[in-house]
């Protein structure tokens, strides 16, 4: 497996992640579902990856430019990009996630319309760009401009919420491996996102997952793209540092 030649301080390898006990959601699936994820054709998430590949070369907006016009071959230019997001953007003045980074390119560089969160186009481009990092270890920076976002995300993770008064940590730290009806509770890692979730019967983003989990404990969810969820995403990605990306993963 190829790793980045020069990794920043938080550059854990998959071996480091395994030693630290970080486990991908893949390990909590039954074998047929794992096989579905491994099957490059049958994996339904690949429908979006291929749709994203077509969008990559599509000329858009007032500039009539495609992603490819600036970024050329995605396999080269987008390699390892998804492993670093969410990341601090000096231009935006805050931490943004991959979806927002793609959207900023779209609205500012291509001068095209903004991508609607959870739309087919947004999922397709995010899945396509993320899949260029498949197998590479998650490696987000939590220092410098990202430090305050990281702290907020960490607080969110341990904050009880909702009518069921549960925090992310209650299930995904304290009860990993226990059962909730037929489900085995996973560590809640996000190294496979956007995922093809069998429950949703479609591809879904990290923010859709966070909103779903919040609703599951009867808490009011935040909006997709909200800073709360971007902060949480940064923390959760750091929590899974070293885990190789699996986009598009298949999950329950």
């Amino acid at each position: 497996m190829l790793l980045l030649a020069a990794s920043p301080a938080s550059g854990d390898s998959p071996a480091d992640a395994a030693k630290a006990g970080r486990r991908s959601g893949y390990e909590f699936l039954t074998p047929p579902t794992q096989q579905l994820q491994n099957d490059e054709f049958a994996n339904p998430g690949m429908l979006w990856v291929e749709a994203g590949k077509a969008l990559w070369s599509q000329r858009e907006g007032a500039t009539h430019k495609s992603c490819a016009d600036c970024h050329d071959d995605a396999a080269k230019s987008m390699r390892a990009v998804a492993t670093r997001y969410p990341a601090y953007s000096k231009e935006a003045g805050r931490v943004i996630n991959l979806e927002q980074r793609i959207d900023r390119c779209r609205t500012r560089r291509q001068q095209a319309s903004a991508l609607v969160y959870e739309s087919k186009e947004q999922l397709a481009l995010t899945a396509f760009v993320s899949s260029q990092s498949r197998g590479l270890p998650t490696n987000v920076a939590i220092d410098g401009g990202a430090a305050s976002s990281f702290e907020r995300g960490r607080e969110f993770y341990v904050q009880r919420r909702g009518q069921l008064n549960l925090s992310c940590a209650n299930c995904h730290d304290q009860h990993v491996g226990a059962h909730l009806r037929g489900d085995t509770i996973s560590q809640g890692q996000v190294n496979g996102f956007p995922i093809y979730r069998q429950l949703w019967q479609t591809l879904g983003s990290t923010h859709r997952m966070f909103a779903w989990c919040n609703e599951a404990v009867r808490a009011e969810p935040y909006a997709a793209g909200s800073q709360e969820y971007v902060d949480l995403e940064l923390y959760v990605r750091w929590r899974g540092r070293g885990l190789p990306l699996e986009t598009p993963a298949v999950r329950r």
Partner: protein
Amino acid sequence: MSLSRRKAVSSLGATLVAIALRPMRSFAGEVETLAAIRALFGEKPMQTGRVALQLPSLAESGNLVPLTITVDSPMTETDYVRRVCIFANRNPRPWIAAVTLGPKAAKAEFSTNMRLSGTQDVIAIAEMSDASLWTAQANVLVTVGACDSMLMRR
């Protein structure tokens, strides 16, 4: 093909009797499945065998249950599988799919994914070129996930 083990089983009749005698709780799907089978094939006898169902014994999501069906047939111009009808007997609508093969299909084997609303039997009926019917069924245990409710399907 040996005919010595052929059983002219009228599974339709036998199952109808079983349904009539069972206790209160019955599933609309099971009755509908029988009705759909009868609408297709009338009272024709079905023999068990020649059809093999490959599916997981436990499905962690009812929304995507892989299925492979293999029918023992030489698939020649004169001896082939005409079609395979698939049912899930406790789905709100029991029909899963009807697959038409024919002599141009090289192999009587195909795969797809089903939706199962709960633990139930999956039933496949193969109609051969000589109009004989062969059937097989398999049970799938479908587990319900955490926080899984109509509300949370969004």
